[in-house]
């Protein structure tokens, strides 16, 4: 690293899927990402664009030590548990890591005099959509402990903004997907619960097929509709949010999505087109807590921070497939 003047930014969870893409984008745009991650779900080899500090966000002393060492200008906070089903079975884990951990990081930040914070939130804070697309003023009524844990941190940050304790940007992601064009990092969850990697597994023969949970939703083809946003566009939103705060901007919340929904059947067809392989499909019952459709209204982020989703579904799936093949050493069909 030669960029001695690059302002350091602490990226908690920076060895994870979205965190690592954001770290890459930070480095590309003149920042030094300091990745703080306990590697419980992150990957050491995803940390490529700045120093790595192994640590747990629940460990206030460790967070403080890292803040003292690097004196970052801001914190981008990704570290969290994300699997909705697990949150229902083990809510205390989610409240511990997502809420308690965030509170610990915020307290350490206050002590270190850091007052800018970008928070990784989710459309799961909205719960069942009352209207589509959903804008930021949509009522927030989460359906599971995961969504509640994220909303609690949003609430803390809003109150801290009101008391001048912290300025923050809350980014509510819709469905993050795809992988970096460079092919160095991508989606790699254990267990995998996201649709695109599961469909790719099915077309590659790594799984017997793909289960469609619910084919009787009130959508154009009966399957659930989601707003897939390319992870590199999502990473860019974090850099814009950071610049907004560094420029003195006020605390804000933004949806990050494309504004366009894709149904599961459309997604499968697109994967088949991109990969040239067929996806064996099995129909299954709806899952509890799955909304029929979740589509963002991203106008606020576009108007206020100048964000644009620049990569379409084809680009998402192309990059995801490239990553998936390298991750699992998938060759050409025989």
């Amino acid at each position, binding site marked *: 690293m030669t960029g001695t003047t690059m302002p350091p930014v602490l990226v908690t969870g920076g060895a994870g899927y979205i965190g690592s893409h954001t770290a890459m984008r930070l480095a590309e745009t003149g920042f030094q990402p300091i990745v703080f991650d306990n590697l419980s779900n992150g990957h050491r080899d995803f940390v490529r664009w700045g120093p790595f500090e192994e640590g747990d966000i629940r460990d206030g002393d460790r967070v403080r030590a890292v803040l003292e060492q690097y004196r970052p200008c801001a914190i981008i906070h990704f570290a969290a548990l994300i699997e909705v089903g697990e949150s*229902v*079975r*083990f*809510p*205390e884990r989610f*409240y*511990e890591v997502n*809420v*308690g951990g965030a*509170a*610990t990081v*915020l*307290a350490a930040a*206050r002590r270190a005099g850091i007052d800018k914070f970008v928070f990784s939130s989710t459309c799961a804070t909205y719960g069942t959509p009352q209207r589509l697309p959903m804008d930021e003023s949509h009522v927030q009524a989460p359906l599971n*402990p995961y969504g*509640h844990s994220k909303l*609690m941190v949003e*609430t*803390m940050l809003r*109150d*801290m903004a*009101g*008391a001048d*304790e*912290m300025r923050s940007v809350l980014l509510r992601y819709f469905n993050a997907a795809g992988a970096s064009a460079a092919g160095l990092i991508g989606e790699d969850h254990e267990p995998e619960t996201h649709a695109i990697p599961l469909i790719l597994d099915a077309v590659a023969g790594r799984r017997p097929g793909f289960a469609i949970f619910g084919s009787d939703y009130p959508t154009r083809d009966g399957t659930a509709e989601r707003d897939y946003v390319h992870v590199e566009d999502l990473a860019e939103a974090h850099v814009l949010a950071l610049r907004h705060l560094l420029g003195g901007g006020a605390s804000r919340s933004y949806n990050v999505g494309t504004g366009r929904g894709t149904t599961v059947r459309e997604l499968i067809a697109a994967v088949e087109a991109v990969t040239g392989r067929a996806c064996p499909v099995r129909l299954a019952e709806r899952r509890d807590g799955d909304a029929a459709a979740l589509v963002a209204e991203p106008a606020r982020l576009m108007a206020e921070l100048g964000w644009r989703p620049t990569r379409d579904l084809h680009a998402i799936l192309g990059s995801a497939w490239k990553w998936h093949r390298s991750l699992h050493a998938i060759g050409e069909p025989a």
Partner: protein
Amino acid sequence: MFHKAISPQAPAVLVTGGAGYIGSHAVLALLESGYRVVVLDNLATGFAWAVAEDAVFVEGDIADRDLVTGLIAEHGIVAIMHFAGSVVVPDSVVRPLAYYDNNTAKSRTLIESAVAGGVSHFIFSSTAATYGIPARVPVRETAPTRPINPYGWSKLMTEQMLADTAAAHPLNVGILRYFNVAGADPLGRTGQSTAGATHLIKVAVEAATGKRDHVAIYGTDFVTPDGTGVRDYIHVSDLAAAHVRALERLIAEPAENLLLNCGYGRGYSVREVLDSVDRVANCRIERRLAQRRAGDPPALVANNRRILATLDWRPDRDDLDTIVADALAWERRLAEGTPPAARASSPEPQVSSR
């Protein structure tokens, strides 16, 4: 006074914040119902002398996992009554993170310790502040929860964590949403002792005993019968009894959780409260009219049908002058010195005169 002998086989209850105002009354009520009691309090705002002699007192933090799980194992704790927390609303607006840490994050750790230790029942000290400014008064438990300050949010978050925990683990929870708690133990053993009070009846009896020279009335133009704010004042001893009845219910119905308003279902205005203090103390408190405070609803009164229908609980001191008389008697004891009575010596029962 008469104490029921407490059997070593009696169920043991961990009371966090048991050295504080409401907690110390709950300890008395539990002991009188024959429970064993272990008090955990960090004495940030509580007083060791406020803990009844028959309870085990441990000074420590609710977020100290090793300490809490150790206490659960050592005493065979079957239930936790969780009172510990920060309670000053305006302070929460100025220092929100401190409230989310002390109320939400520390409660989370306590809940985790309860699950890890196999505690069966959990009763949580919540608040009508979770309702925010209610659209309808009296407020039912089904009303939307829209807190208007970090204090209310910090409590609502703990409610949510408890609900999710109860759904996932073999533990049932009782969430008690208090309206305005006031008064003191009728026998004068404990009362509200923390300095810098912001609650009306406490402030008014401080004025009646000369500790303050006036009482401010915040807002005289509310849409209420006399223009001042209306609140549902519940006697702290009735509230303490409600906790014991709630615990009995949680023990009897392990598959059931409770969410209960704690109030009398009737409101008194600020002027009515001050008139009561004048009457009971035979004085004339100086009133100073002041602007409304941000976020004060005009009226906050409980619909208490659910608690009356669910618990074997009937208010015993549902009378404003009784509440005020008990609060005043305690204030006079405090004025004689803190602690008002050495913990070792049995205080004289003080029966309020009306």
